[in-house]
């Protein structure tokens, strides 16, 4: 695609109709592309363009609000008490205020990914030029940017095209956020619709970031065989100087890796990462290592493994400079979004900065030139490592017991712990000489450090937990597949039919963080369960790390046990947070490549297709961030249900269907226009589950779709029933809602289910060609 600003100026022109003088004509953009697909109805949607579609979903899945606070304190009228129906000074009630918070969260998330994309794209354009071609999978990926094509109607071909796409995203995010200002939007469903819009834009922003870096930095390109990466502190040679990169933006890390390789130091030092930067480092350099998910950064910094900590952006602990200072590690802030109060040394000579860091004259610096970050980080790590080797970062076990004796058993640690962990009890046991309970907390603690903030005795609780869990920490040495990027068109062609017909029982996307007690193991168990059942299991971000952090009875990680392709029984890691867009992209590509639906600016139709036909469900087991909210919103607006673990309830708003209200489950049969009750499929759009057992049952159920063939439905029901019986000890009470014809009944359960259907007064119903959009009906009822 090429586009340019057009400005025409005519001084004087004689025509048959008269004389034209001093005519000036400006056209904002003139688009010239060779994409022949006709433009759909909603290219570059504004904040209200897709409102009707959003409302269809929001009326089917009504928001259930659980306010975290009775008050609104966003303007100087307030604080306003909104309890139980009271309106604030601006007129908002608690429902609208709750949805406003959702919109703000989703806008922050979308802005964060889009700003990340902006930085990456601007940097790469500067380095490689606007005409650098996009390539996310060679000939195997012709639909290179499904989300962008769908939302904007643009088929990007070069880095410069992505610049145009981002300009659109930035405008939309500004509109979304502005709607949250006092005295703008006033209706809860309209706030929700705008949150959905933020989610759509977020998906575009993420896609732009990832296809830009895949194309230019030679990341794996839709590669099911992306390298297996060593993961965990146990995989790190701790005798070598170690640079730890934390965050999400790979650009500074590229500077580090390039400088290290150019200086022939690759064998002499370690570059490790936490969170999504870790993944993208491995996509660039397969000898980079992953130490773990973002929630454990306090643990890794406290343990003192890193000689230099490089922070880029997103999810970085904002007290990381103070934590690093305690273990004499140097800090380099490499993003203008997180300057951390450091002096900007971008224009200083590298050696001077290195001297300042090594000598401890400054604890950290801000460097906004990625190449200089590389030089300073590498040189500093090499020089500071020998000095730091003498450092004992953690207390000894004897010191742990002594420190534990200072605990007054006030219990404020537990009362401050987001997971209500029994910390006082563990400290009491340690004071009496038994560190078992503190060691057990190692697996449960999510590393927030709130216990220490609450402790009146200033006990470094987290350090004690890490010391007691040190054996487990040092033995962490697993394998995680590097992010493969997009799903190829070839893979979509192979599985599109079986997915839509229900023969592959579903796609499970396990995304976001897993920072929940035992969250990593829960994620592993859930992924393994569904991969074994021949679902397609897609992972990303920190959940992808958790999925690789445990081994089966043969000693294999999930990524060794299951293939990395988008296929039945595959476990594939698409990559970092921004690679989540490939999951939405895969769903969109099924509609496009398998079902031949046009993508271009055709959001409603494609979302309607996905919602009614694609048995996909997202699971964010320990998600915590605003970015997770916007990622989820992008899936909600496509009609894909998302589950969150227990502390996901803190997102404070669910989108719930009511299975007991048959009128909620009517779809149109596109063949006839008849209304057909398709049952609660999927039952919810956003729901919290309390336990991993419940998650497994709900995942199986939420993969059911109105379009399933009888064979597909029978398969899906057999998984649902099997998991329900295993974890709930009984038959699902709603099974009759999912049986449309007797052929839907799993063959081995005919008698059992037949008796239930009889007792419920069940009647056979039609398998529709389902749609929520009247315009998709091919023949209206006469």
């Amino acid at each position: 695609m090429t586009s340019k600003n057009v400005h025409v100026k005519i001084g004087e022109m004689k025509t048959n109709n008269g004389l034209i003088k001093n005519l000036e004509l400006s056209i904002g953009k003139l688009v010239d592309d060779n994409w022949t697909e006709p433009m759909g109805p909603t290219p570059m949607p504004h904040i209200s363009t897709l409102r009707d579609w959003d409302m269809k979903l929001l009326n089917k899945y009504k928001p259930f609000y659980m306010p975290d606070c009775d008050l609104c304190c966003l303007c100087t009228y307030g604080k306003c008490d909104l309890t139980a129906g009271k309106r604030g000074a601006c007129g908002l009630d608690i429902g609208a205020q709750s949805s406003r918070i959702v919109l703000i969260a989703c806008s922050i998330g979308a802005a964060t990914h889009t700003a990340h994309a902006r930085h990456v794209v601007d940097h790469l354009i500067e380095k490689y030029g606007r005409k650098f071609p996009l390539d996310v999978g060679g000939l195997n990926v012709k639909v290179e940017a499904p989300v962008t094509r769908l939302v904007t109607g643009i088929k990007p071909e070069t880095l410069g095209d992505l610049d145009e796409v981002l300009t659109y995203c930035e405008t939309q995010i500004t509109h979304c956020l502005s709607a949250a200002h006092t005295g703008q939007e006033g209706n809860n469903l309209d706030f929700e619709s705008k949150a959905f819009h933020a989610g759509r834009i977020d998906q575009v922003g993420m896609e732009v970031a990832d296809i830009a870096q895949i194309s230019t930095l030679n990341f794996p390109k839709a590669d099911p065989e992306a390298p297996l990466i060593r993961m965990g502190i146990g995989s790190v040679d701790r005798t070598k100087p170690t640079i730890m990169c934390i965050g999400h933006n790979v650009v500074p890390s590229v500077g580090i890796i390039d400088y290290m390789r150019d200086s022939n130091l690759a064998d002499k030092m370690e570059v490790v990462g936490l969170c999504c930067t870790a993944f993208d480092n491995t996509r660039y350099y397969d000898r980079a290592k992953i130490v773990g998910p973002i929630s454990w950064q306090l643990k890794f910094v406290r343990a003192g493994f890193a000689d230099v900590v490089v922070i880029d952006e997103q999810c970085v602990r904002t007290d990381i400079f103070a934590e690093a200072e305690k273990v004499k590690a140097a800090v380099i802030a490499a993003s203008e979004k997180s300057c951390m109060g450091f002096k900007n040394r971008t224009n200083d000579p590298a050696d001077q900065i290195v001297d300042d860091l090594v000598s401890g004259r400054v604890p950290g610096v801000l460097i906004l030139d990625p190449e200089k970050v590389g030089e300073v980080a590498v040189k500093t790590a090499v020089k500071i490592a020998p000095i730091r080797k003498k450092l004992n970062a953690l207390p000894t076990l004897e010191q742990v017991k002594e420190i534990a004796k200072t605990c007054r058993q006030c219990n404020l640690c537990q009362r401050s712990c987001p997971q209500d962990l029994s910390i006082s009890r563990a400290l009491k046991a340690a004071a009496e000489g038994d560190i078992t309970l503190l060691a057990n907390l190692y697996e449960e603690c999510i590393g927030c450090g709130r216990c220490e903030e609450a402790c009146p005795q200033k006990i470094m609780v987290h350090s004690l937990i890490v010391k007691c869990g040190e054996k487990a920490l040092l033995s962490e040495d697993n394998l995680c597949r590097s992010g493969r990027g997009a799903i190829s068109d070839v893979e979509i062609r192979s599985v599109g039919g079986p997915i839509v017909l229900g023969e592959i029982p579903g796609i499970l996307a396990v995304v976001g963080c897993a920072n929940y007690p035992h969250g990593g193991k829960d994620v592993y168990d859930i992924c393994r369960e569904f991969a074994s059942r021949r679902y397609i299991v897609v992972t990303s971000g920190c959940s992808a790390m958790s999925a690789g952090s445990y081994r089966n009875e043969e000693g294999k990680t999930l990524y060794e046990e299951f293939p990395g392709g988008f296929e039945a029984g595959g476990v594939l890691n698409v990559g970092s947070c921004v690679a989540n867009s490939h999951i939405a992209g895969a769903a969109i590509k099924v509609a496009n490549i398998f079902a031949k639906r046009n993508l271009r600016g055709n959001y409603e139709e494609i979302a309607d297709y996905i919602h009614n036909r694609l048995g996909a469900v997202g699971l964010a087991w320990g998600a915590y961030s605003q970015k997770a909210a916007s990622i989820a919103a992008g899936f909600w607006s496509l009609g894909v249900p998302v589950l969150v673990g227990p502390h996901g309830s803190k997102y404070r708003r669910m989108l719930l269907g009511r299975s007991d209200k048959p009128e909620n489950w009517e779809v149109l049969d596109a063949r006839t226009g008849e209304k057909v009750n398709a049952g609660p499929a999927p039952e919810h759009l956003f729901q919290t589950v309390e336990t991993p057992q419940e998650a497994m049952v709900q995942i199986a159920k939420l993969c059911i779709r109105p379009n399933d063939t009888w064979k597909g439905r029978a398969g899906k029901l057999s998984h649902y029933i099997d998991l329900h019986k295993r974890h709930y000890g009984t038959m699902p009470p709603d099974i009759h809602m999912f049986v449309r014809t007797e052929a839907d009944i799993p063959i081995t359960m005919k008698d059992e289910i037949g008796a239930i259907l009889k007792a419920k007064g069940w009647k056979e119903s039609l398998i529709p060609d389902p749609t929520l959009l009247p315009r998709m009906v091919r023949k209206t009822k006469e």
Partner: protein
Amino acid sequence: MSCEPWQCAEIAATKKANPIQKPEIAVAMIKKASRPLLIVGSNATQRWLEGKQLIDYIIDLANASKVPVVATAHMVGEFIKREYQPAAFMNAMDIAQRIVDPQWQGIDGKGHPDLVMFVGLPYYMEALILSGIKHFAPDQKTMTLDNLYHPHASWSFPNATLEEWASNLRVMTSKFVEGGQ
């Protein structure tokens, strides 16, 4: 016993739960209700009180009081293992959403519950659900049987030790056994 929210960052609500200072008060309120409902969460098997799991105290209470139980998460299986059949089981959010719907006719279809009790959900999750009910069904009476103070409920036990909790549940059960429902 303290009436501060158990989790320190849980902001005290503008409308705070009345503390239940004695288990007899909770019993009286349950007896006064015509359609009470007890919702039991996944901590029912995670909490041990004097060598016995919370779920066993709840079964004793439910049997004595005849209050119908809704099990959340996968707890139904745990109840069935103990030969107790809950009146219903469903996701915690699902039952909460129904409670705020004034048209909902209860799990037996005969009428909306007039008293909803909670026990054994993760603290923050229970707090959020109670907040949702407080705001969107302000006339709904709610009570918690946990040992942690929940400001968003109508009535809550104050923060208490496991021993005090066990005692409260035992006393409640005994009062129903003595007096009948």
